[in-house]
């Protein structure tokens, strides 16, 4: 007979609030909610078309049987930092754990506190109609093995607090590089071309160069312009971003104004990379 264990320490409202804020900005609910079929937020069930077949997102609510209710803090940390599930299986990088690897211990714990505060939803595990996709899985394993996973992002003392906040958000929450950084031959992110765009992003579609290069990137954009696109998706000529970015804007728009401006300041400070997105 499973009895609900009384929590030893009462959940800290500030931790839950910070966790909710970060989870919203990272868009955890975007993938982990089956919005198409009216699923509960964070209860998983969304079917993602990936190179590995159809993957169904897991339930993040605290249901002990079908969610992550039985996960310890260590389980959660291992999953987010290293992409390893409690049963020692490895997550495919469709779950962008290489980015969550950069979360601070504090933020990681707060996100767990937030998820624990959600109502438990018992959702039967729906197996994805995944293909074996052995070659793609092997490629992913090699790419992940070649990806540095340095752990919590360390502030740079040579830059101010705003820059550091922007850098942290891009590295750990916005996971901008997941789409905007081209890959090397081995499939890992190319550090020489950080955020320089690619002609074949995760959707197979071009992804723009968001370094401050004047010809191929955002060099002609002001900080307000970058702030604008993160706020409601509008570009300087009042186009509105589409494709996969439209979903991301729903998440970045949840950030505070200060945080959106910090990201803009950070992006404007990056080395301009002139590689056009088409190569």
């Amino acid at each position: 007979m499973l009895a609900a264990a009384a929590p030893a320490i009462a959940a800290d409202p500030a931790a839950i609030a910070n966790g909710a804020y970060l989870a919203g900005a990272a868009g955890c609910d975007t993938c982990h909610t089956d919005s198409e079929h009216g699923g509960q937020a964070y209860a998983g069930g969304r079917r993602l078309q990936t190179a590995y077949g159809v993957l169904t997102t897991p339930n993040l609510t605290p249901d002990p049987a079908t969610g992550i209710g039985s996960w310890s803090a260590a389980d959660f940390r291992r999953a987010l930092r290293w992409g390893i599930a409690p049963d020692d299986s490895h997550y495919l990088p469709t779950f962008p754990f290489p980015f969550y690897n950069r979360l601070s211990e504090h933020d990681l714990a707060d996100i767990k506190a937030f998820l624990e505060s959600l109502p438990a939803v018992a959702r039967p595990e729906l197996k994805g109609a995944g293909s074996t996709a052995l070659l793609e899985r092997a490629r992913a394993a090699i790419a992940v093995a070649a990806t540095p996973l340095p752990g919590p992002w360390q502030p740079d003392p040579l830059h101010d607090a705003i820059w550091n906040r922007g850098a942290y958000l891009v590295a750990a929450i916005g996971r901008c590089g997941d789409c905007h950084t081209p890959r090397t031959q081995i499939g890992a992110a190319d550090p020489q071309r950080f955020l320089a765009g690619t002609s074949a992003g995760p959707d197979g579609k071009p992804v723009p160069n968001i370094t401050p290069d004047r010809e191929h990137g955002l060099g002609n954009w002001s900080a307000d312009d970058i702030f604008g696109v993160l706020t409601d998706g509008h570009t300087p000529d009042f186009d509105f971003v589409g494709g996969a970015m439209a979903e991301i804007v729903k998440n970045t728009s949840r950030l505070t104004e200060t945080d959106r401006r910090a990201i803009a300041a950070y992006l404007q400070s990056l080395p301009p990379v002139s590689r056009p997105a088409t190569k």
Partner: protein
Amino acid sequence: MKTFAKLLVLGALCGLASANWAGALAADKTQVIKDRQSLMKEQGGDLGAIKAYLDDKGDLAKATAAATNLTETMKKLPDVFPPGTEGPNPEGKFAPKADVWSDWKGFLASRDTAAAKADTLLAAVKGGDKAKIQEAFADMGKNGCGGCHGKFREEIKK
């Protein structure tokens, strides 16, 4: 023999006509795509005028005219997506996804959503409350324009 000759002439004329017809269709398609692009640019301009008012760079009268025009151009959207007009925009950067036509109902639903948000935006602009206008503008951008672009538009490889 006379019938055969008539048939030959008829056939030749049909051939000519269909060549012209195909040419005319191609010209139509180019025109439709141009019209589509200018409609989108017009909508962008109208949203720009509303944002200018929000940023204290433009006046309310222009913003109101723009918001009104936006609700009008929303009605024209299905007209610039007739079947057979897939293909990149004149700048060569974006193209409508095939889903526009294979999921025409969904496309119209996205248009309806955007049109409703344009109506809300107009009401907000007429009300003059900047906070409400900002909220309606963001909703329009993210879930109106962005909602449709997210589902039905793609960047193209050059």
